[in-house]
């Protein structure tokens, strides 16, 4: 089985959210649902030195969708077998089986699962599976004005960029083994940092 994965270069992501809206448009997602969303992370302090201000400030953006994990906790926890992983490793939700219990949403550490109150089912990134089938890139990937999103097989991406992903605000790998490769920003910190926090909460969950 192949495992498709996303590549994300945090070092040059501007946080413009074009990817987020490209995804919304492609999938007609209602307000409140952002299969791909962009976290603004920041930390640090201002230091006053006489008349001067020294900015000891860190910040970067993280654009993230579902990571189509190798070990998807959402899938193992769904009682309905409504979450499946296809032969390319893409994790999909079967709307004809989901009962909308939202249990999977509790378990996924990437905020990928988002409940659609109109459809009354759990929804998530499909890796634009229909586009892949047509030989096209996922909508978010071809949208990015900074060209910092890409995808491929996890194997290839790791070969090319190394095995990096445990950066805040992503958790440690061990829970789900996410299929994503991240090039860190100069301010990126390890997942267990206490220095940083997400500062645009309303923009990702509001």
């Amino acid at each position: 089985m192949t495992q498709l994965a996303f590549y994300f270069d945090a070092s040059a992501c501007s946080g413009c959210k074009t990817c987020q809206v490209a995804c919304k448009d492609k999938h007609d997602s209602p307000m409140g649902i952002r299969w791909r969303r962009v976290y603004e992370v920041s930390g640090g302090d201002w230091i006053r030195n006489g008349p001067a201000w020294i900015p000891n400030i860190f910040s970067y953006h993280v654009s993230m969708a579902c990571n189509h994990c190798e070990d998807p906790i959402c899938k193992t926890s769904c009682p309905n077998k409504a979450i499946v992983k296809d032969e390319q490793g893409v994790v999909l939700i079967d709307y004809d089986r989901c009962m909308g219990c939202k249990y999977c949403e509790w378990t996924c550490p990437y905020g990928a699962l988002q409940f659609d109150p109109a459809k009354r089912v759990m929804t998530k990134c499909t890796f634009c599976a229909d586009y892949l089938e047509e030989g096209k890139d996922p909508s978010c990937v071809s949208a990015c004005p900074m060209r910092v999103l890409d995808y491929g097989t996890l194997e290839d991406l790791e070969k090319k960029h190394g095995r990096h992903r445990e950066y805040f605000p992503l958790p440690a790998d061990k829970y789900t083994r996410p299929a994503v490769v991240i090039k860190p920003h100069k301010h990126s910190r390890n997942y267990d940092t206490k220095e940083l926090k997400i500062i645009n909460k309303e923009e990702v969950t509001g």
Partner: protein
Amino acid sequence: MSSNEWPLVFFTMLSQMSAGILLSMLILWLSVKNIEYEQVETLKKTLILIAIAGMVTALVLSFFHLSLPQHAIYALSNIRTSWLSREIILASIFLLTLILCYTSLQFNMPHRALFNQLFLASLIVGIIFTWAITRVYMIPTVPLWDTPSTPVSFFNTALMLGAGATLVATGILSSGKAALTPVAQLQSVLYFMITAAVFISLLNMFLLQPDIGAVSGSLHTPAVSDSWQTVRIVFLLAGYTALTYWIAYQAPHPGGSGSMLIYIAVFCLFLSEMAGRHLFYASYFRVGV
């Protein structure tokens, strides 16, 4: 905590109470010798009925948590990996065994042994079921739930509410009548069980439960409020004090029924557990985003 989790508060509490009733019955059975009285037979029936009512209510309420209940049948399909699936299956089996217990009592089947076997089976299913409930919440990505505190608190709820419900039942049965020795004996055992549960509850609250304040950075910071914690402790102590007063001054006196006090006390304990369970859900936060 969002309102859609109230069904879960009641689902878990009522399920645990039902399992706890069986546990209380077992303990009573083992600790009180002359248990063969007619009255106690009625007690059994009443208790099994309460357990059934608890489970039925729990299951009905759990449906309110679903957005597409018509797909609920699929919930039985992932027994292989999903604790939630297991929980739902065990809930159904537990209810089934309870109904069988009741039937065997109701039709007064001559073979007491059959009831005993069914009772034991229910008890075991009830315990496994309670364990499954705790496992549903011991999600690796939810650090405040994935701790020993969760099983301790869930089983303790079973102990407290099971004994509480049983106490209420004895109260109902003995009200108006002169307290009979076996009932008084039963009640002191139940009081002892509740004492243990209160003690464990406090222990869990102050020693086992992980420190919520330690969490930082995450998107879903726990929405725990101190006022709920206060409600929880106040009702716990109020309920227990009332119960202690009752056992010390009213229960021993022949003719002094005092059932009203039992009801109030157990109701306080129930409210305390409710607050606690609410806090449990509110303490949800997950690693990552």
